[in-house]
């Protein structure tokens, strides 16, 4: 907490460090606080979209439980970054091997984005959780609890976090604006909230990025930042393809994928959404969507995403020819 307040990254500087500072999750905060008060906490599963306080609450639990020893007794892992379950098990093993510091008889392991693990990896995780129950408590976080296997869910107390409302995000934004000497109006806050889709981390990042340009935060700046951060070129790719220029289409596609570092699956999703906006007959849209679905399936079966996407572009070219 002392280091955080001098931080220049606002998501850290203004990260709540006790239960009272957490906005918008009152019910969950109350229940978790009671559990921490009883000292013997169970494994927990925090479920909900990004940027609504899951990691923050896990850190607060550790701080409240372990006080000055919280850093020694708290391990944070990210399942989407760690290379496979073996790495996670090894880190857990190393961490759980030593006794906890202080009076609390266990340590806390926070595994962020646990739904990034495959089913098999989750079963391995379940065994790991059982092996170290004596010395560790696990706090898992996920975006969708349906992606966590039942045996893990049944071992955890599940907390479903709410999407933050506009008034909660606005409270955070106004507090930061005041401390940092920024000027911001209601319109800008509205755009900030909509643009970040209730993700408080993203809202704060947008605010700080705007503030790095000017201390007067306007709707206009935020809109520029929002539109620059969003990939919008998939339509251009499809337009080239429908106009019959296959080579331009695929060149543009590769550029977009590399520049935005997006995966083939992300591209397919964007294409599938864009098909409805194309200027073609409805029955052709149906055909294109069917083809898109087929290629999405092949992405899973195949090995080279770009080959599969080119096959999709080639069928768009064909449709474009039929149209004329």
């Amino acid at each position: 907490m002392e280091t955080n307040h001098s931080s220049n990254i606002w998501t850290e500087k203004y990260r709540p460090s006790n239960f009272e500072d957490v906005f918008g999750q009152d019910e969950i905060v109350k229940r978790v606080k009671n559990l921490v008060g009883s000292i013997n906490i169970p494994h927990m599963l925090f479920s909900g979209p990004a940027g609504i306080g899951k990691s923050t609450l896990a850190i607060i639990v550790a701080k409240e439980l372990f006080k000055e020893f919280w850093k020694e007794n708290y391990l944070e892992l990210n399942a989407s970054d760690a290379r496979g379950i073996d790495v996670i098990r090894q880190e857990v093993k190393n961490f759980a091997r030593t006794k906890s510091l202080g009076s609390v008889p266990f340590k806390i392991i926070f595994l962020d984005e646990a739904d990034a693990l495959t089913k098999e990896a989750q079963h391995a995780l379940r065994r790991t959780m059982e092996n170290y129950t004596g010395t560790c408590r696990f706090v898992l976080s996920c975006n969708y609890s349906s992606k966590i296997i039942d045996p893990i869910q049944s071992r955890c107390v599940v907390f479903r976090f709410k999407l933050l409302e506009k008034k909660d995000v606005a409270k955070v934004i106004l507090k930061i604006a005041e401390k940092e000497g920024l000027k911001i109006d209601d319109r800008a806050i509205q755009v900030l909230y909509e643009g970040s889709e209730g993700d408080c981390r993203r809202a704060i990042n947008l605010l700080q990025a705007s503030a790095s340009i000017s201390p007067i935060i306007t709707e206009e700046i935020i809109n520029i930042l929002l539109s620059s951060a969003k990939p919008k070129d998939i339509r251009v790719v499809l337009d080239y393809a429908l106009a019959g220029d296959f080579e331009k289409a695929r060149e543009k596609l590769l550029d977009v994928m590399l520049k935005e570092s997006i995966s083939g699956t992300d591209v397919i999703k964007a294409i599938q959404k864009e098909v409805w906006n194309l200027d073609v007959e409805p029955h052709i849209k149906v055909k294109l969507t069917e083809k898109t679905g087929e290629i999405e399936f092949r992405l899973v079966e195949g090995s080279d995403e770009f080959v599969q996407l080119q096959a999709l572009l080639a069928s768009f070219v064909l449709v474009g020819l039929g149209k004329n």
Partner: protein
Amino acid sequence: MTTPLSEKYRPNKFSEIMGQNLAIDKLKAFFNSFNMKLAKKKAILLYGPPGTGKTTLAHVLAKEVEYELFELNASDLRNRAKLDEILKPSTLQKSLFSKGKIILVDEADGITSTEYGGLAELIALIEKTKFPMVITANDIWQQKFSLLRQKCELVALKEVRYEIILEILKEILEKEVKNVELDLLKSIAAKSRGDLRAALNDLQSVIYNNNIGEFNEKDIGEREKNLDIFNAMKNIFKCKTTKETTEAYDNVQMETDQISLWLEKNIPTEYHGEDLARAFEALSKADIFKGRIYRQQHWRFMEYQNFFLTAGISAARRIKSNAESFTKYQQPTRILKIWMNNQNNARKKTIAEKYAEYTHTSRKRAMKDFFLISLILNNESAKKLDLSEQEKDFLEERKNSLRVMHGLNRFAEKKV
């Protein structure tokens, strides 16, 4: 130990080399123009299948012009330090004992492209050298050689013709005072598929194994001939689809992945409309089988992968094409593009990693939001994240270009 026949009878003069007249002329022309400082390029790249005389040509050139040949076997020099040590002095000082120096880099295929910087060093050397350089390689169409190809005069050596190999075998037998049945000699020549060195090695194994009678034709390993990728593509795209089509890549010494990239690149130049869609459908199916091979280790699926890459793509053509028409096939550029992008992204990645750890978030998300992050980070937070000087420079540069690109500077004047 006996000297290999291929060494013992290596030609000493251009006039002793048979069947490579075109290459000889080009080599001579390169050397002359280099000496008159007219050469556009400072190195000549002799490429072709093994045993066609690439190294021999370099040796003969040195002898004919009485230059010292400074030979480097690239397979032995896999790292930058060694290339530095051996190559650099020779380019910076003049030869003491002869009129001049020719640098020979033999078997460039063995030079690594990235790990130790072998190729980069070689290219730097070509730029610096004061002496003509001769480089030999089997397959120069690999991605890693694209820059090298631009820096060199390219000369292709063809497989040595069957009649010429047979004639050479006969001559050598005479000099060795040995006798081998003509039929066996013919079969050695035929099986060598234009690889003279292989033919000579086979001959040697026959004449120095006293029991010639037991010699089995199978002992002469089937020499794979490197029918180059261009021919294979011509075969696929322009010829009638027959059972032989499925063997189109049998003699192409290239990984299937690489072949697939060549196809991907060139399908749109050969096929349009329905043909194009059908060809990519075949490529897509081949890729599915490849995925299944990887995941299930079911190697028999390679049959199907190959089928779609050959007959599948060949039969995609419904509009008859002219088999005699000439198409200049392009080499694939996708992997290079990805590689260059990764180079650019490497620094971005390390910064995102540090940011992710500091802010309890995932690297993936940090990469996704990098646009905002690069605006947010300033000198002080850079210190907190323990960013290196290069990382700071990278950020600064990016920040400025973002501000310009999105016209953000016009907001900067205002004060609260």
